[in-house]
């Protein structure tokens, strides 16, 4: 235990005195501080602009928008049609009715006088004209919505309802709130379920985990390989127990990672606090800083365990490399494993179905569970026993892989020459 403490302190000092480590941390802190202060900085510039009293700012919303032409044979309900299309497209287009012929309309689109045009045939069909069709063009979908409203409104009018009333019926305002029953914890299940916030935490945690594991994993690996290639290992293996070495190194890197993250997030929190009034009612930022304590605890648990399991393996791999150049190739399979886990979780997250079978399996496999299970906890409803089983498997795996890594380390550090095959190492570990 004393050896572990000595190694932990020595290794931590290595990180905290490492110029690159300190440099990156400071850079991130300053960057985050700057981002968090953006509204205040913007406000300074805005107030300077507004100081000129003679300058009158007139903002004509229709002038900046591109033109959308709308042609209809139905002159009786042209008001209804225009208002429906304007309602659907007002944020993006200046919708104008036109009587021009089709060739003229096409000419206008080609000459950029108009961006696109809808030609209506009756109330249930239309043609859409645009210079270059794009995959992301959602205008047809919006037009269908508008056409439905037009059809419904016209139908109501024909049944004797006044235009205003018909439009009120069609455009009736519906208010909504979303509740996640059972997500996170029972007490919270009745409160408002902050899906946007949870999505963001998951996103941030997974990205942080991704960055930290790849960065620190490589650092642990390189650290071990450097000791081996400089032959400092010859003295080290005779001075300290391999388990103390491995756990000391990995936990020190984990702690260093936490110091870095704490500095970055601390800076974010501090500068948000300072600039809070400038951020106003920004929903995203606000939900970001109002993370539920339970979710925060889960985040920490999965983060630490996920980090440890990979860091141990990176350390073990480092011990089998003779030259520093070999590290990148040797760690490749592990990096791949991690990237696959990352891709699976990210895909499920963005597709919105975090409870698919793959994710369920992944949330119990130790190498993927830190990301997969946390994502499911944050974005869906997971029974407590599943969480408990997942954490138990993960804790068991961390300890098991830690001990295995220490054994690989003991065998690996004394092998020089070509990097041995995994099977050969495991055989040697088994026999030792």
């Amino acid at each position, binding site marked *: 235990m004393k050896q572990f403490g000595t190694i932990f302190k020595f290794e931590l000092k290595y990180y905290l005195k490492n110029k690159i480590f300190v440099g990156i941390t400071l850079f991130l802190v300053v960057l985050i501080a700057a981002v968090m202060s953006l509204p205040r900085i913007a406000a300074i510039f805005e107030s300077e602009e507004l100081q000129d009293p003679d300058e009158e700012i007139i903002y004509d919303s229709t002038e900046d928008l591109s033109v959308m032409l709308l042609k209809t044979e139905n002159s009786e309900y042209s008001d209804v049609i225009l208002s429906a299309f304007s309602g659907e497209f007002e944020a993006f287009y200046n919708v104008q009715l036109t009587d021009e012929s089709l060739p003229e309309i096409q000419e206008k689109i080609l000459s950029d006088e108009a961006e696109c045009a809808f030609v209506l045939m009756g109330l249930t069909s239309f043609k859409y004209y645009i210079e270059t069709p794009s995959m992301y063009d959602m205008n047809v979908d919006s037009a269908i919505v508008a056409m439905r409203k037009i059809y419904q409104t016209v139908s109501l009018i024909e049944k004797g309802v006044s235009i205003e009333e018909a439009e009120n019926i069609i455009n009736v305002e519906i208010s909504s709130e979303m509740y996640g029953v059972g997500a996170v914890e029972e007490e919270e299940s009745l409160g408002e379920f902050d899906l946007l916030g949870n999505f963001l935490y998951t996103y941030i945690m997974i990205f942080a985990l991704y960055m930290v594991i790849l960065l620190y994993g490589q650092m642990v690996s390189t650290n071990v390989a450097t000791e081996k290639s400089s032959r400092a290992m010859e003295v080290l293996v*005779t001075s300290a127990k391999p388990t103390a070495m491995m756990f000391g190194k990995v936990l020190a890197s984990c702690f260093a990672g936490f110091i870095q993250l704490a500095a970055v997030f601390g800076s974010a929190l501090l500068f948000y606090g300072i600039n809070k009034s400038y951020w106003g009612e920004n929903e995203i930022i606000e939900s970001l800083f109002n993370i539920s304590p339970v979710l925060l605890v889960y985040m920490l648990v999965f983060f630490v365990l996920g980090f440890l399991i990979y860091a141990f393996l990176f350390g073990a791999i480092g011990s089998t490399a003779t030259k520093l150049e070999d590290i990148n190739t040797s760690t490749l399979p592990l990096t791949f494993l991690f990237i696959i886990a990352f891709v699976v979780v990210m895909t499920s997250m963005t597709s919105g179905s975090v409870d698919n079978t793959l994710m369920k399996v992944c949330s119990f496999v130790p190498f993927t569970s830190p990301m997969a299970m946390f994502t499911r906890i944050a974005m869906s409803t997971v029974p407590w026993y599943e969480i408990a089983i997942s954490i138990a498997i993960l804790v068991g795996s961390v300890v098991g892989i830690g001990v295995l890594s220490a054994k690989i380390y003991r065998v690996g550090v004394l092998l020089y020459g070509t990097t041995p095959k995994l099977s050969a190492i495991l055989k040697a570990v088994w026999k030792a």
Partner: protein
Amino acid sequence: MVLELRNIEKSFGEKKVLTGVSFKAEGGKAFGLLGRNGAGKTTSIRILMDVFPANGGEVLIDGNPIDYNKIQIGYLPEERGLYPKKIIIDQLTYFAELKGMRRKEAVKAVDYWLERLGMTEYRNKRLDTLSKGNQQKIQLVTALAHDPDIVILDEPFSGLDPVNAILLKDVVKEQIQKGKIVLFSSHQMSYIEEFCDSIAILNAGKVALHGDLHEIKRNYFRNKLVVRTVNAEKIKADFGDSCSEAENGDLIIHLSDPDKKKSAMLRLVENYDIDEVKVFEPSLNDIFVEYAGDAVKED
């Protein structure tokens, strides 16, 4: 204190590295562990230091299994190297702490040894700014700072200039005087002869020879005579095949039986102009070549 390795067996995979290796080393004396490259010296040392376990056999101190919590071992490996980019005092203190010293004691002990080896001026420098010889002296501190009971020095003199070699000799003598077990492993036989009272020669994982160096020399076949003479040609002609010439011009007379040495000596003194005649005493080098030499053929 007596250190004993008894019937140590070790294999790596299919390869048998040590077979029934046994030897004893006493406190207050230096012990030489000899053998050609690959004979099993480093493996024996690593088993002795508990880096990995043996497949069979025991490591004993005064007849009881060694307790690594009580017995401190200092080690200067043949493959030298510490942290090249780290400050010397930091890493030396770290190694001493790993050996169980408190930080304050460690700093004090390291400072003592830096002073003793004339390295105090490099205390706060990075290791890679030092010359190879000086780096080796720094490495010696890791073997001695925690005042170990057993000091293992693997090729301690390689790479040292004559002045530093004398400094190291003094340090080694001091360690022996303090009653420690000093275990040497070296190919430089002159140093082993100078320090070691007993030796073990390993050959292909087995102990080929083990015991007190003086006794080994005394018990060596006394069937050769060394003759210094001006009548070399005449003696060679008279003695025929049993006479050969050494590199320094002395004649070596091989006797068919050690008991014939008296009559052979009388015959030489009476019939030729002899400056000196004596029984051939082998150097450690001769013994080494004879006992460790088989491995040469195996290679």
